């Protein structure tokens, strides 16, 4: 681990074609039954395959282990041949007792199956293993899930890891427990570009790491500002032991991070399957698993017990600001800003409790700003300490209660694959539209469990059936990420959006070819009550060979108004752009979308749109229904 650091969890790839292939093929399930084990039917023994981390390849349906280090196998053919590995394991584990310390979960299972006469993984025989086990002092296991964070839509994909809760652990000291993570072992000595490339496309080996929870919690809740959900898993002592023994077997090994490999959420599921084979969690997923989906799958079993919430630093600050009386906001901002005598004197006019509240929020806010690089660090460091000193001179106990648990968790939000059917009129032609959205969340989807004002859409494809009897693709969104985070006195985030895809472009009354389009916008957003307003400066690049000059580059303004109320949501948007280069034209668009959620996964929608370009008007309206699963 020298000169390296466990950083990456899952690697993401732009593999659209492969992705489509994946969603079209169904999950391959490894069969399992309880016939007595022999080397002939080993492939049907789920637990033996679990212990070797075997899985059928999505590519060629071949069974092979996902562990890539040869040391993990006792047979030379072990990676591809579970029978050979079984024979070699039985032979070598019975001949060389010390080898049982290296593969205790395997040895234990073979012993239970009556294939290994003597099991000896006691502390006397395996001191290293037991010293390692001792650090966990294991009582139970929790699954830890850092949730998505506002203004970082990519964080919706999350990370999961395990925490081994200690005997006698309380909520006051759970930070001391150890965690089990799957991460890419990256090398910081690599030149930055190589580092970024290898991190993204593979090349760094994936390894299991064990770290104290205070380190992991800090990474997520303080550095990334993500709330954390902790799900206690109802494992028996025997299952916990099995999970740890198997983790020990995996520790010195690596999983290649190739272009197409498995992510951390998936890797964690394999550990849970070893602990309790009847869960079959990995069967439900391809190599990539969205963490909130994996949690949904677990929720259907009786695996999950108590669920705890750990608000991030930013969430706590937001909560404190909401609780802070309005008349103290200005003073708090002034206190966070500079060490002026007048502010100090003004602060003295308030009650002790109010003074403590102002100082606490001022410190937290300054810390947040410095972290976001909004103020110089050197100044922030010294002045923060001065604020803490002032606070320490007041009596103890914070005037703020902890931030409350959100009503809906990330894994309780709507599901992510959406199909919708709508009927309407596109430029005076009756049109039926089928839209498929493999992932993930639209601004008009129910927002519970998702960050407000965030949208990520992948590969959304709309196909129109028109009254003329023709079928055509009306739009294809490769990727659309929108992040509309409201600004206020304390937080000043930038709202932005990016939209890349193929959209119909009106070149004349009768010609509207699919046109490669890239929109990038940035600006501000504000909340007024439960209304959200935004304004973005936007550039649009389009490419289409039927267009004069083949391309167009436009610049313009994109403003919008969003409302969320009970089950209703609406979005009114106005776009105006004018030419900067290429095909010289202007484009105006006014659109209005409305959705009514019957349930979190079923909505009625309506939309209408008028666009205006080169003296012509185009109209469209649709009424439809959306189903998410």
């Amino acid at each position, binding site marked *: 681990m020298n000169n390296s650091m466990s950083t990456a969890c899952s*690697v993401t790839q732009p593999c659209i074609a492969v992705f489509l292939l994946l969603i079209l093929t169904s999950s391959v399930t490894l069969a399992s039954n309880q016939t007595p084990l022999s080397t002939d039917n080993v492939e049907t023994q789920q637990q033996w395959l679990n212990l070797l981390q075997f899985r059928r390849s999505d590519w060629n349906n071949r069974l092979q282990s996902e562990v890539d280090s040869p040391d993990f196998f006792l047979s030379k053919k072990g990676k591809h041949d579970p029978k050979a590995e079984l024979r070699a394991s039985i032979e070598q584990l019975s001949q060389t007792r010390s080898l049982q310390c290296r593969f205790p979960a395997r040895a234990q299972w073979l012993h239970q199956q009556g294939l290994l006469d003597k099991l000896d993984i006691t502390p006397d025989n395996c001191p290293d293993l037991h010293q390692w086990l001792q650090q966990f002092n294991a009582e139970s296991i929790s699954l830890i899930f850092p949730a998505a964070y506002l203004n970082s839509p990519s964080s919706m*994909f999350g*990370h999961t890891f395990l925490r081994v809760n200690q005997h006698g652990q309380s909520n006051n000291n759970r930070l001391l427990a150890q965690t089990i993570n799957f991460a*890419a072992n990256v090398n910081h000595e690599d030149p930055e570009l190589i580092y970024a490339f290898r991190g*993204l496309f593979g090349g760094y080996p994936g390894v299991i790491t064990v770290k104290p929870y205070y380190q992991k919690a800090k990474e997520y809740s303080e550095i990334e500002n993500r709330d954390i959900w902790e799900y206690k898993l109802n494992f028996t002592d025997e299952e916990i032991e099995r999970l740890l023994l198997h983790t020990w077997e995996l520790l010195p090994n690596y999983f290649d991070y190739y272009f197409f490999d498995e992510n951390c959420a998936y890797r964690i599921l394999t550990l849970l399957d070893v602990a309790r084979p009847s869960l079959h969690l990995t069967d439900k997923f391809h190599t990539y698993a969205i963490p909130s989906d994996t949690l949904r799958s677990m929720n259907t079993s009786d695996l999950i017990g108590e669920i705890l919430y750990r608000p991030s630093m930013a969430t706590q600050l937001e909560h404190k600001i909401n609780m802070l009386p309005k008349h103290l906001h200005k003073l708090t901002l002034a206190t966070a800003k500079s060490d002026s005598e007048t502010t100090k004197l003004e602060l003295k006019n308030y009650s002790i409790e109010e003074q403590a509240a102002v100082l606490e929020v001022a410190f937290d806010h300054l810390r947040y700003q410095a972290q976001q690089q909004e103020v110089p660090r050197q100044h922030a*460091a010294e002045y923060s300490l001065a604020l803490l000193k002032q606070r320490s001179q007041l009596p103890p106990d914070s005037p703020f209660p902890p931030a409350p648990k959100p009503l809906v968790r990330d894994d309780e939000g709507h599901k992510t694959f959406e199909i919708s059917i709508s009927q309407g009129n596109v430029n005076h032609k009756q049109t039926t539209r089928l839209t498929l959205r493999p992932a993930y969340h639209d601004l008009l989807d129910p927002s519970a469990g998702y960050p407000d004002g965030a949208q990520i859409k992948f590969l959304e494809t709309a196909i129109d059936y028109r009254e003329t009897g023709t079928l055509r693709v009306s739009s294809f969104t490769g*990727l659309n990420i929108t992040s509309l985070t409201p600004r206020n006195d304390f937080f000043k985030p930038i709202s932005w959006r990016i939209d890349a895809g193929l959209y119909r472009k009106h070149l004349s009354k009768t010609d509207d070819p699919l046109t490669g389009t890239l929109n990038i916008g940035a600006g501000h957003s504000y909340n007024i009550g439960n209304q959200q307003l935004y304004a973005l400066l936007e550039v649009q690049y389009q490419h289409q060979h039927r267009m004069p000059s083949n391309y167009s580059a436009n610049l313009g303004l994109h403003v919008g108004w969003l409302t969320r109320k009970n089950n209703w949501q609406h979005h009114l948007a106005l776009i105006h752009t004018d030419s900067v280069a290429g095909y010289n034209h202007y484009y105006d668009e006014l659109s209005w979308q409305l959705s009514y959620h019957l349930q979190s996964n079923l909505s009625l929608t309506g939309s209408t749109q008028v666009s205006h370009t080169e003296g012509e008007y185009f109209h469209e309206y649709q009424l439809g229904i959306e189903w998410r699963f």
Partner: protein
Amino acid sequence: MIKPLLIGSLIMGASTLAFADNSGPGCGWGSMLFEGSSGTPSHVVAATTNGTSGNNTFGMTSGTNGCDTSKTLDYKGTSAVVFHNMDRLSSDIAKGEGEILDTVASVMGIESADVPTFKRVLHENFDTLYPTSEVTSEQVVNAIITVMSKEQSLAKYI
């Protein structure tokens, strides 16, 4: 379903997720206060891979950032906890309560009856524990020990 995210991440280039500044010198309270912001290509990796580590973690084990604490006395693990939570511990002590303060009390083996005293004494001695923004975690731990030794009910835990 995560793969195409890369496209966005590459284009975005920026993210709220971040790495600690690897070039940051020293390990005083001030330099450890604001871990987690700077902008290099590696942040794209951090954004898409959903896993980051502060350089504390790295520096602690390798000593590369000058913050090698492996040679210091550990007081049952207290040094590591304090080291990794420098900023939160100071703000907990300033207000006399908080999770990190509870965690430090736990790792030092302080019985629940003495925890309120432990918190009070540290709160009252904030200036001694954090004399300047350059104070290191080792100095903070030593100062905690000294402050505890002067309090009858806490001296037994040292």
